[in-house]
C-alpha cells in the first residue's frame, strides 16, 4: 500500500515536470475567436452542436500528439524541420502566410478584448496598451518557468465558464445525451458550417507550430515522452471540457429563448437576462482571459516560427539581447494588431475573414508536413507513426482538410 502510494506520488511528480505545453496550447485554441464561435454555435443550435465536440477532441488530440512526439524525438520545431527538409523557398512562403494568418487571429482577439472593455466600462485604448505592455514585460523579463505559471493561471480562469453554465440552469440530461447521441440534431447546411467553424477554431496552424516550439523550449527528454503524450490527451480533453460549458451556457439561455446572437463577443451581455448578472460577468471575464491568452500565445507562435525558420535564438529563456529578433517579432505583431483594432474606419470583420481564409489554406499544408515528418523513419526511428496510427491520422487530416476546403469554397458562393 505504502509502495503504491510512493509510486503514485513519484509518477505524479514526473507528470508535473512535463506538464504544461500541451495543455496550454490546447486551451489557447479556445482563444477569444474560439469562445465567440462556441457562443454563436450554442446560441443557434443548442445542445445538438455538442455532438461535434467529441470528434473535435479526438482530432485535436491526434494532431497535437504528433507535434509533441516529433518535438520530443527530434528536439526541433516545425519551423526548423520545414526549413531543413523542404528548403528556404518553401520555408519563407510558409512563414509569410503564417505571419499574416496569425496577425488576423491576433486582430480577432484584440477585437474581442475591445468588446469586453466596453462591457466592463474600461477605457479601451489604455486597456489595450496596458495588455501589450504587460505581456511584453512578462515575456521578456520572465523565463520559461515564470511564463508557464502565468499561462497555467490563465488556464484555471477558464473555470469561469463552468460557473457561468451552472448559473444558466441548463438541462444537464439533454446536454450529456447530445454529446454522444445527436438526438436533437436537425441536419442542415448551417449545422455543417457551424461544425466546421468549431473545428477550424480549435485545430489551427499556429497551434501546431506553437506546441512543438513550446515543448522544445521546456526541454522535455525522450524518457518523458509517454507522460507528454498523456498530457496531450489530457489537454485536448480539458479544452473541449471548457468548450462544453461555453456551449451549454449559451444553449441553456439564448437557444432556449430563441434569442439570435449577432456576434460571439456580445454573448456575455446577451445571457444576463436569463442566467443573471453574475453569470454574464463571469462569461465576460472568461472572454477577457481567452483574448489575452490568444494574443500572447499566437504572437509567441509566430516569434518561435520566425526564429526557427531563420535560425535565430528563440526561447523564453534567452536573454533579451540574444533574443532581440524573437522578442521583436512578438512585440511587433501585438502593436500592429492593436493599432488595427483601434482604427475606427477599418472593417475588422473583413480582415478577420480574409486572414482566417489564409489559415484555411495553410492548415492542410502544415498537416501534410506533420504527417510526412512523423513518417520519416530515419528521423523518428522507433517513434515513427505506426500503420494503425497512420490510418487514423491520415483519415483525420483528410477530414479536417475537406472540411476546411468546404468552408473556404462555400464562403465565396
Amino acid at each position, binding site marked *: 500500500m505504502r509502495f503504491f502510494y510512493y509510486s503514485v506520488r513519484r509518477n505524479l511528480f514526473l507528470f508535473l515536470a512535463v506538464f504544461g505545453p500541451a495543455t496550454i496550447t490546447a486551451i489557447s485554441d479556445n482563444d477569444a475567436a474560439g469562445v465567440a464561435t462556441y457562443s454563436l454555435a450554442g446560441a443557434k443550435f443548442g445542445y445538438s452542436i455538442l455532438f461535434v465536440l467529441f470528434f473535435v477532441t479526438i482530432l485535436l488530440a491526434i494532431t497535437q500528439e504528433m507535434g509533441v512526439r516529433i518535438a520530443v524525438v527530434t528536439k526541433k520545431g516545425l519551423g526548423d524541420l520545414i*526549413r531543413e527538409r523542404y*528548403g528556404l*523557398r518553401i520555408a*519563407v512562403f510558409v512563414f509569410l502566410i503564417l505571419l499574416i494568418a496569425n496577425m488576423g487571429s491576433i486582430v480577432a482577439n484584440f477585437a474581442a478584448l475591445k468588446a469586453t472593455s466596453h462591457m466592463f466600462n474600461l477605457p479601451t485604448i489604455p486597456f489595450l496598451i496596458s495588455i501589450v505592455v504587460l505581456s511584453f514585460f512578462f515575456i521578456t523579463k520572465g523565463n520559461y518557468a515564470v511564463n508557464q505559471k502565468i499561462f497555467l493561471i490563465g488556464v484555471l480562469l477558464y473555470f469561469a465558464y463552468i460557473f457561468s453554465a451552472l448559473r444558466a440552469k441548463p438541462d444537464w440530461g439533454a446536454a450529456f445525451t447530445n454529446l454522444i447521441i445527436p438526438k436533437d440534431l436537425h441536419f442542415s447546411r448551417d449545422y455543417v458550417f457551424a461544425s466546421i467553424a468549431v473545428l477550424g477554431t480549435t485545430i489551427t496552424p499556429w497551434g501546431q507550430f506553437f506546441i512543438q516550439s513550446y515543448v522544445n523550449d521546456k526541454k522535455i527528454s525522450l524518457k518523458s515522452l509517454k507522460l507528454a503524450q498523456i498530457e496531450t490527451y489530457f489537454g485536448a480533453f480539458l479544452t473541449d471540457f471548457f468548450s462544453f460549458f461555453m456551449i451549454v451556457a449559451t444553449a441553456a439561455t439564448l437557444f432556449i429563448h430563441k434569442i439570435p446572437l449577432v456576434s460571439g463577443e456580445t454573448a456575455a451581455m446577451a445571457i444576463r437576462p436569463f442566467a443573471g448578472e453574475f453569470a454574464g460577468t463571469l462569461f465576460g471575464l472568461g472572454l477577457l482571459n481567452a483574448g489575452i491568452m490568444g494574443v500572447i500565445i499566437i504572437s509567441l507562435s509566430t516569434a518561435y516560427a520566425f526564429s526557427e*525558420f*531563420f*535560425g535565430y535564438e528563440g526561447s523564453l529563456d534567452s536573454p533579451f539581447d540574444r533574443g532581440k529578433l524573437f522578442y521583436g517579432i512578438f512585440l511587433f505583431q501585438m502593436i500592429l494588431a492593436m493599432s488595427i483594432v483601434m482604427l475606427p474606419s477599418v472593417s475588422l470583420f473583413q480582415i478577420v475573414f480574409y486572414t482566417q481564409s489564409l489559415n484555411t489554406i495553410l492548415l492542410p499544408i502544415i498537416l501534410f508536413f506533420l504527417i510526412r515528418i512523423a513518417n520519416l523513419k530515419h528521423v523518428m526511428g522507433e517513434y515513427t507513426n505506426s500503420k494503425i496510427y497512420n490510418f487514423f491520422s491520415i483519415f483525420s487530416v483528410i477530414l479536417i482538410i475537406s472540411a476546411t476546403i468546404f468552408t473556404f469554397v462555400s464562403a465565396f458562393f
Partner: protein
Amino acid sequence: MIYFSEILHKSIYTDQNSYLGRLKDLIFVVKDRPYITKMVVGREKEVVYPLSSLKSINGKLIVSSDVQSTHLDENELYISKNLLDQQIIDLAENKVVRVNDVILQNKPEWYLSGIDISFYGILRWFGLEKSIVSIMKLISLAPVPEVLSWVDIQPLELARGRIKLKLEQERLKKLRPEDLADYLELTNTESIKKILNTMDQQSAAMVIKNLNINYQTELFNIFSSEKAASVVSLIEPDDAADILFTLDKQKRLEILSFLSIEDRLELEQLLNFAHTPIGEHITTEFFTAFPNDTIKEVMREIKNKTSNFEHLNYVYVLNQNKQLVGVCNMHELLLNDEDTPLYKFMITNLVAINLTTPEEIAISKMLKYKLYGLPVIDREKHLLGMITLDSITGFLLEHFS
C-alpha cells in the same frame, strides 16, 4: 566565385549534347581545404559523378561524355543535404543563424570557400537579390553581407552533423571591415567586386581601405574613375594617396577630376609629398630585437652588429610577425637589470610614420615628441627604416636660414 544557389537544379548535358538530368547536390571532402569532388545528378534516380568530368558551367552544365558514375566516400558530405539550411551554432551552443547559401570557388579548382549567412543569401533564392539591394541602397539601408569563411567552422563537429563556429557570436555578428577584408583577400578581385557591390558605399570603402595595396590597385583599375573617386572621398586622405600613387598618371588625374576642390587639393599635396618622398631622409641603419630578449643578449648583439652604424639611439622591438610593437632607448637599457626582458620596460605607445607622410609632418612629430629618430612602417606595421635627427638637419637649416 559562384553561389551554390546559382547552379543548383541546372540542367546537365554531355558534350555530345545528351541530357543527363539536373544538378541535385554537390559532394565535398571535410578537410582544411574542402574540395568539391562529386556531383549528384537526378533524373529518374540520382547518380553520383566525379566533378572532374565537368567541363563548363555557362548556362547549362556540360560534362564529358565518357563520364562514369561513382559513389560517396567516407569523409565526404553533401552540400544541400548536410550544409544548406542547417542551423549554425556558436561556441556556447547558441543558435546564430542558418546557412542561407554556400559560396564556391571554381578557380583554380572547385572548393567550398564559405557560407553566406546574410539576408542576401535569402533573397538570392527568389531571384530578388539585385532589385532589393538596389532599393535598399537608395534608402542607404543595405546591410553588410555576412560571410562565414570555411576556417570559422569546426570540421569535426560538421562530420557529426552540426555546424559549429570557432568564434563567439558577437564577433561574428559584426564582421568588422578589417576581418571582411582579410577574408576577401583569400578570394579573387572579381569576387571582391561582387561582394563590394552588395554593400553600401561607406562600408564598401572601409573594406577597400583594409585590403592590401595590390588588391586596391586592381580594384581601382576595374572601377570607373567616378566610382573610384567616390571611394577616395570616403577614406582617409593618406590611405587614398597610397592607392592613387600606384595608378598610372592618366587614371589618377581622371579620378582627381571627380573630387571636390577641397579633397583634390589635399590629395594633390599629399601626392606631391610622395613625389619628393621622405624617402630621401630614410635610413636603414636600425637595430631590432624581440620582446623576450634580455638586456644582456641585446647588448651583445649591439656590440656584434652595429659597429659600422653612425648612431644608435633606439632599439626597435618586433613581434613574431615582424611587426613593430615597441621601442626602448639606450638610457633605459643601461638603467635596467641585465636579465630583464625588453617587454618589461619597452614603450609600446609608438610614434611612427609611413612612406607617404609629408616631410613637414614627420619633422614636426619629431620635434613635438622630442625624438632622435622616427620609425617608418608600412600598413602591415613592418619596419621599413627610420628617420634620424641627423638626416633632417639639412631640411631644418634650409628653413631657418
